[in-house]
């Protein structure tokens, strides 16, 4: 995998980053910015998951725990203690780290499917606790942001929190940082050891690798960045409750971003985010149904048309499910792996 990775050239990367940095200057559509922010959040969660799942081979289906802990810490500090979110995110990260080390000490004694089950169980414990500890978290009512103080950063002071632009840049910076960290980790001793653990845990152990230490290292990095995404999401959307930020659905979604692009690669989660976010948004907002009708493929007044218009918006999770099944059956190396294999075949032809 280390040799067969797809590595875009540096100038291309610089170009893409440059475009992303300047995007809000010439794109006015708030909807486009909204999509980009969601994509950034997904890139962050997917890449973070990848460090634990893709590199180290520990498939967590409970990553919502870290997302939610970040979200809740930031929101509780903001709403109940008036701590601005640019400090709150770090408290969130610290809280997520503590939770991660506790979870790690329980779950890393287990392997394979038992680890998966344990990761789900602990995330559910966190969710139900948030639901029940109403005095601390507001329980099922959730937490709503009422006001974000002005923020002075660089030379500028941000006062307009209705605008998507500040969230866009925070998202972009976090996403770039996590991608950079992924790259640095992979080419470092940490990365080698993580992958050794993934490939053969017992062999790795006998080669001098302290399994507990390194698994917890992977989890810690993963949890911290996932919590940053959670904090950003919370302040951006302005409202959180246990089912949206701590639910099993979210954990599965994070897992899928990591897998659909291609496990264990740097670009994989990016591709995963680029596929899943627009698809889910398009379904949610009825764009696809409208598109099919407008293009004449389906008549608006037909039974199929009416059905699509009614229901496709609710069907995005169904499409998720179908996508997962298709990817697992036909593209087990993810979209990236699939594309790569086709490219290799074409090159040979």
């Amino acid at each position, binding site marked *: 995998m280390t040799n067969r990775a797809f590595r875009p050239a540096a100038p291309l990367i610089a170009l893409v980053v440059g475009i992303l940095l300047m995007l809000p200057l010439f794109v006015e559509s708030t909807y486009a910015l909204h999509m980009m922010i969601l994509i950034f959040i997904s890139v962050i969660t997917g890449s973070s998951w990848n460090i634990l799942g893709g590199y180290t081979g520990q498939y967590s289906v409970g990553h919502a725990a870290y997302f939610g802990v970040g979200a809740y810490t930031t929101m509780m500090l903001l709403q109940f203690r008036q701590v601005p979110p640019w400090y709150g995110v770090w408290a969130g990260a610290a809280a997520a780290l503590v939770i991660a080390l506790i979870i790690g000490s329980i779950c890393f004694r287990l392997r394979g499917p*038992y680890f998966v089950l344990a990761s*789900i169980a602990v995330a559910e414990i966190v969710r*139900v606790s948030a639901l029940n500890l109403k005095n601390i978290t507001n329980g099922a009512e959730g937490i709503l942001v009422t006001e974000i103080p002005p923020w002075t950063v660089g030379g500028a002071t941000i006062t307009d929190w209705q605008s998507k632009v500040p969230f866009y840049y925070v998202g972009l910076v976090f996403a770039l940082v996590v991608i950079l960290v992924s790259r640095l980790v992979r080419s470092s001793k940490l990365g080698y050891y993580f992958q050794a653990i993934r490939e053969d845990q017992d062999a790795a152990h006998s080669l001098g690798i302290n399994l507990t230490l390194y698994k917890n290292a992977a989890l810690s990095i993963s949890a911290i960045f996932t919590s940053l995404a959670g904090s950003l999401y919370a302040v951006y959307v302005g409202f959180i409750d246990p089912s949206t930020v701590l639910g099993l659905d979210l954990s599965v979604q994070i897992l899928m971003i990591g897998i659909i692009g291609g496990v264990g690669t740097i670009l994989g989660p990016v591709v995963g985010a680029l596929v899943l976010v627009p698809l889910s948004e398009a379904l949610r907002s009825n764009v696809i149904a409208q598109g099919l009708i407008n293009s004449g493929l389906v008549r608006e007044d037909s039974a199929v048309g009416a059905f699509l218009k009614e229901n496709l918006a609710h069907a995005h999770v169904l499409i998720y499910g179908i996508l997962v099944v298709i990817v697992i059956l036909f593209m087990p190396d993810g979209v990236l792996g699939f594309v790569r294999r086709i490219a290799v075949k074409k090159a040979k032809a």
Partner: protein
Amino acid sequence: MEIFLQSLISGILIGGVYALIGIGLTIIFGVMRVINFAHGELLMLGMYATYYLFSLFHVDPFLSIFITMPLMFLFGAFLQKIVINRTLASPPQNQILLTIGLGLIMSNSVMLAFTSDYKILSTKYSSSSVRIMGISISLPLVISFAITAVITVALYWFLLKTDTGQAIRATAQDREAARLMGINVSRMSIIAFGLGSALAATAGALISPTYYIFPQVGSAFTLKAFVITVLGGMGSVVGATLGGVLIGVAESVGGVYFGSGWKEVVVFVLFLLVLLFKPSGLLGKSTT
């Protein structure tokens, strides 16, 4: 004391139904080594089938088992043969994801077809209760337990006394050895998944008079099924039986003493304790 006894008995009765769910999952794991994340959705399908058989055709939920059980057996067999079989040689995470995906497809298709509205299946006896030893117990629960007991006994007889049943046990014990002895192991996988699905759906049918019916009801049961099978030992039918009753009791009694909001946490904490201290379960053999 009466409250304790009442919750204990309800716990045991519902535990019987949980045992069915757990047995189904443990057979699937034992034979195929697949962790079926869609198990709860199979139960949900059983619930919906029972609901519509009742509301459209007035078939009593308990009697409708004769229809849903074979139907869901075939459905499960079909799923295994056409979809899941392709991933049996893949790493376990692929299988996990596949069953997660199938579960999502099942629950969301049902949501699209029948909406997320909570459905209630009310029979004449849904809220009837019966007095046993001075304690009031829900009648549907007693009937479910009785049916569960019958099915479990039949299952044990099948596994112990019939050729196919013994072949399944052989495959669960050692797939390669079974293959070398001439057992058609892929056929065993199909039967196992069919059986597991039928049992899950039957459990769904049994609880439909007393539970809300909605598309997402499955996921809570999937997790519970895992806890049961791990507790009893993955692959052990007897273990799953005992595990089911234990979880039923833990949940029921835990709910009374800690508040119903914390009942799930009681179960999960129990789960983690077992995973940590006796991962092979109370009765199981270690297969990791």
